[in-house]
């Protein structure tokens, strides 16, 4: 440590971590010298009001700052559309023609609904349900109700006219085709019953 070096405690005083009262008596004089140094710090504002005008004047001759083209392409942007009615009519006509051409089925009347009663005789079953194209083959969606004590299970559904495939699910595991309806191979080794309404 040279003659000019502040004591580490005085350094802490300069840093604002200690006050002069925290210093031992032998360092008080050095502490006061340090505080005189800080008292001479000039914290007054420096005003440069003319800078705004000079900067803006300098910018007049400079090209506008722009992001690279590829960055601009990735930025979100606001798009404003000006709609001209006389251009809108042909556009709407084209749109309507496309709708008729692409989705003709949606524009036709919906098929009529038909109520159907499904029946299965299964005296030993604890639960029976119906799975088919009309309920996305969900084995829990359509449970049948036991009617009396003779093992007859039944449910009524209202379905759109058309062809449906289905099967009964006995006790949640065993898939059984309807013995009273025609059946087709489902492609996976099972038979699906077919109902045409």
């Amino acid at each position: 440590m040279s003659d000019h070096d502040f004591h580490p405690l005085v350094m802490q005083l300069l840093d604002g971590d200690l006050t002069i009262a925290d210093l031992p008596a032998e360092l008080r004089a050095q502490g006061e010298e340090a505080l005189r140094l800080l008292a001479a710090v000039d914290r007054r504002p420096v005003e440069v009001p003319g800078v705004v005008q000079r900067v803006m004047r300098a910018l007049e001759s400079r090209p506008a700052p722009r992001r690279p083209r590829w960055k601009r392409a990735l930025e979100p942007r606001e798009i404003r559309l000006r709609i001209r009615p006389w251009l809108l009519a042909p556009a709407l006509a084209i749109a309507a023609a496309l709708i008729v051409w692409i989705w003709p089925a949606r524009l036709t009347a919906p098929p009529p609904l038909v109520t159907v009663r499904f029946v299965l005789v299964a005296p030993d079953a604890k639960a029976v349900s119906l799975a088919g194209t009309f309920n996305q083959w969900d084995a829990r969606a359509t449970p049948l109700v036991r009617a009396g004590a003779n093992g007859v299970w039944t449910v009524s559904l209202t379905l759109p006219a058309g062809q449906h495939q289905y099967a009964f699910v006995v006790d949640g595991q065993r898939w059984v085709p309807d013995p009273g309806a025609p059946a087709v191979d489902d492609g996976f080794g099972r038979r699906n019953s077919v109902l045409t309404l």
Partner: protein
Amino acid sequence: MRLGAELTDGDIVRAVLAGERERYAQLVERYRDRYARYAARMLGSADAAEDAVQDAFVRAFDQLAQCKEPDNFLGWFFLILRNRCFAERRRSRATAPLEAADSVAAADRTDGGAETAERRRALQLALLELTPDQREVFVLKHVEGLSYGQIAERLSTSVASLKMRMHRAYDRLRQELREHA
């Protein structure tokens, strides 16, 4: 976008980049004096500080598209001005020294006693004898009132290295002030 005075730095930067270059004046207005003081203490001259701030704002405009975080325009601009001040000191060292502490002396003739003025002038001259790194940490802490943590964040360095720099600055200032007392 917010209206009028509520515009953030980020709003203004984005507006300028979108073509509204006149909005840049708001940024200059907002920060010119604050950074002029930093530059004046770094360069020891109010005139040199004014030139440096002006130059830094023009340079920042040219490079605005490279400002990755428009909401942190302040920190980004500070680094441009800092480089400008460091370059100015190197240039003036190589040619002729700046008229040190001219602004201090001129201002003190009107608003302070002769003794205060002399102490301020002596400290400003002593500051110019520090290395730019030492002077900068002293100015940011004792003139701008930033904490070591804030300075470390702004300069992307550690508090420990800043304290080491600062303690060397204290010793050097003491030496300079004693020699010229």
